[in-house]
C-alpha cells in the first residue's frame, strides 16, 4: 500500500476519532441540557464524516473501483442531525429543563413555549 494513501487514511481516521470522542466528552462534561445538545450533534457529524471518508478512500483502493456508498451515510446524517437537535431542544424547552448559571435571556423559553409575541415581552431580546 502506498505510504501517502495510508497516511491520508490514518489522518482522516484520527480526526474522526478525536471528534467523536470530543462529542462524547462534551455530553459528559457540560452542565445543562441545552449546552449538552451542542457537543454531540456538531462534533459527531464531522467525526463520522472523517471516518466514512477514510473508509471510502481505503475501500476504493482495496477493491479497485470507486466505492462511494459510505458517503450515503454522511449525507443521511447531515440531513437528519439538525432535525434531531431541533426536536430535542424543543423537548427541553417544553419540559422547562433547568438552564446553566450564566444563561442570558432565559425569558425567551417561556415566550417560545407559550407562543407569546416577542415584542411585548419586556424581559426578552430585540431591544432595538
Amino acid at each position: 500500500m502506498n505510504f501517502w494513501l495510508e497516511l491520508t487514511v490514518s489522518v482522516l481516521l484520527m480526526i474522526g476519532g478525536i471528534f467523536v470522542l470530543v462529542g462524547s466528552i462534551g455530553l459528559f462534561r457540560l452542565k445543562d441540557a441545552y449546552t449538552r445538545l451542542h457537543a454531540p450533534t456538531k462534533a459527531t457529524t464531522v467525526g463520522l464524516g472523517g471516518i466514512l471518508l477514510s473508509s471510502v478512500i481505503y475501500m476504493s483502493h482495496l477493491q479497485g473501483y470507486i466505492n462511494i456508498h459510505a458517503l450515503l451515510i454522511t449525507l443521511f446524517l447531515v440531513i437528519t442531525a439538525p432535525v434531531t437537535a431541533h426536536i430535542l431542544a424543543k423537548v427541553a424547552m417544553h419540559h422547562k429543563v433547568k438552564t446553566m448559571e450564566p444563561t442570558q435571556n432565559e425569558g425567551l423559553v417561556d415566550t417560545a413555549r407559550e407562543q407569546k409575541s416577542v415584542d411585548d415581552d419586556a424581559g426578552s431580546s430585540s431591544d432595538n
Partner: protein
Amino acid sequence: MLAFTLLCVGIMISIGLVLNLWRLLVGPDVVDRILALDTMFINSIALIMVYGIHKGTSLYFEAALLIAMLGFVSSVAFGKYILRGDIIE
C-alpha cells in the same frame, strides 16, 4: 501504521461509548437520556465502520446505514412522544 491507528480510534470511540452510557444512566432529565442514546447510535456507526476498515470489507456498510436510519427515527419518535404524549398526531 494503519493497524495502530485503527486500534487507537477504536479505543477512543469505545471510551466515548462509556461516557455516553454514564450520561444515559445518570442524566438528570429525559432529554439527556434521549441525547445520550442518539450519540450512542452515532458512535456505534463509527465503531462498525472502523471494524469494516480493519476487516477490509464493505459488508458492514448496510448495518451502519440501518443503524443510522433506526437511530434517527427512534430519537425523533422518542422526542415526539415526550413532547405530545403521542407519536403520530
